[in-house]
């Protein structure tokens, strides 16, 4: 099965400072891939390349190839709006809009021009169920999303994303602002979502990576050190750096 997203020789510079020095990573559909590495190694930077959020930062230059379903992500003809609907992103800080839960989840659908009430209702229910937060919010769909707990907010954000039915979900440390119970709920959610989506998650929590990820990529100082099945990497890392990092010698 060919990878859904292939990246080759990715270099990225913020101004004159190069933050990524040639990354090659392929991502399979229906799987979870974890990006790990010490702070500042370029995990978020790389993740943002995948839905072109780095375009928003002035003075960045990106080279290399990004093939999504065999198409060039950075081709001049790429429709950014379409692309971001197919490759969605969940952020470190839960960031629901200060609107009702319903409006949050329908935001992307309305952007896409869907306004039929019945369709929206169905999609809201489906997305919230998929994000495993339906039972907690179903009686309060018109309440402000900000009034829920951090973990619920994060799952509302995941639902907001699922509503537009993306192919790939990017998550940048989605549980680092949450308590252990909420984190565990998000992890469960991700594992059930895996059968329908390609999930790429940045995490500082090595246990989390080992629990949920099929494959793990270890990055260091803007380089990809090792990329392998999680089970393999966590038991028999091929590189000394990887082994040192996993054993807590740095990072």
């Amino acid at each position, binding site marked *: 099965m060919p990878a859904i997203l292939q990246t080759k020789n990715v270099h990225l510079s913020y101004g004159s400072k190069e933050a990524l020095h040639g990354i090659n990573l392929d991502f399979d559909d229906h799987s979870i891939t974890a990006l790990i590495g010490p702070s500042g190694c370029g995990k978020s930077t790389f993740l943002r390349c995948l*839905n072109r*959020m780095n375009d*928003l930062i002035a003075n960045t230059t990106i080279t290399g190839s990004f093939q999504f379903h065999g198409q060039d992500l950075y081709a001049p003809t790429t429709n*950014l*709006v*379409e*692309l*971001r*609907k197919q490759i*969605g*992103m969940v*952020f470190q*800080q839960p*960031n*629901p*809009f*200060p*609107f009702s839960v319903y409006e949050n989840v329908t*935001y*992307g659908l309305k*952007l*896409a021009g869907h306004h039929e009430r019945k369709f929206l209702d169905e999609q809201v229910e489906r997305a919230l169920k998929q994000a495993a937060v339906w039972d907690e919010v179903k009686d309060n769909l018109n309440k402000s999303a*900000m*009034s829920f707990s951090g973990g619920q907010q994060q799952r509302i*954000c995941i639902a*907001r*994303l699922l509503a*537009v039915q993306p192919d790939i979900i990017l998550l940048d440390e989605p549980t680092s602002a949450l308590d252990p119970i909420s984190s565990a709920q998000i992890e469960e959610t991700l594992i059930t979502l895996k059968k329908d989506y390609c999930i790429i998650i940045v995490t500082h929590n090595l246990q989390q990576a080992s629990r949920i990820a099929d494959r793990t990529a270890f990055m260091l100082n803007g380089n990809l050190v090792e990329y392998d099945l999680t089970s393999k990497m966590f038991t028999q890392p091929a590189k000394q750096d990887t082994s040192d990092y996993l054993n807590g010698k740095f990072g």
Partner: protein
Amino acid sequence: MDDIQKKLASPSKASHEDIVGRIISYSCIAAIIILVISILYFITSRGLATFLTDHVNLWQFLTGKDWNPGSLNAQGKPQVGALPMIVTSFSVTILSALVATPFAIAVALFMTDIAPKSGTKFLQPVIELLVGIPSVVYGFIGLTVVVPVIRNLFGGTGAGILAGTIVLFVMVLPTITSLAVDALRAVPAYFRSASLALGATRFQTIYKVLLRAAMPRLLTAVIFGMARAFGEALAVQMVIGNAVLMPRNLITPTSTLTSQLTTNIGNTIMGTLPNNALWSLALILLLMSLVFNLLVRYIGKRGEIKS
């Protein structure tokens, strides 16, 4: 031993300073409170004298159209109808806020989201400068530029609500803009990223998320602008025409509450009806600023962005 006991029993230097500092600040607060209360008492008692001492009917005061407190009308009643001034004050306030708000929000968006770097570099000083220009200068420009232009275009004297609106528009624009900038900056950046990451364009993000999230504070900005317009006296006085007549359209000479006060307060004798009637106008102004204040508080409380 005795020495130590004495030292512990008597207040230290620091606690002594503490007491002195407290006395100073409490007396300052007391002075300010007394000042505020006496101002309120003075305006209220003077303003009510028209109704209590001179037995003018409140309803007739608020709805009457003839203003000539120095003389009696055919029925032997004093002519103190403030409606023309009330109408004009509200007209220039609302019109100038209506015209200024879209401009202010556009400029604010330019500074916060469209071109933050150059926008802030060039527009920020311009706005600060505009805030700092004394109102007599605005009035003077209004008198020498705006009024003649209106006169040439529409005829008449050129003075009136239109001229007042234009002058006030320029005066409230920087007020509303700088508060709108604060309102937009207070919207966390992660709302913007969330919207963009869902496939919204920058423009969709601005009007679907940003303006909506900032709405309560934007409204507050507009109300502050309106309060400024309502209370502005000098600049308006110079272009409004100062005839206490019901405005028939936007270009007939008329008068606002404030302009009537500044024009006539020096020409009346304390304690007489014409003087008391002016104080009643001041009372209306006071009550209105109270209303603006309450509105700002009410909206501010409802619109806090919780995170």
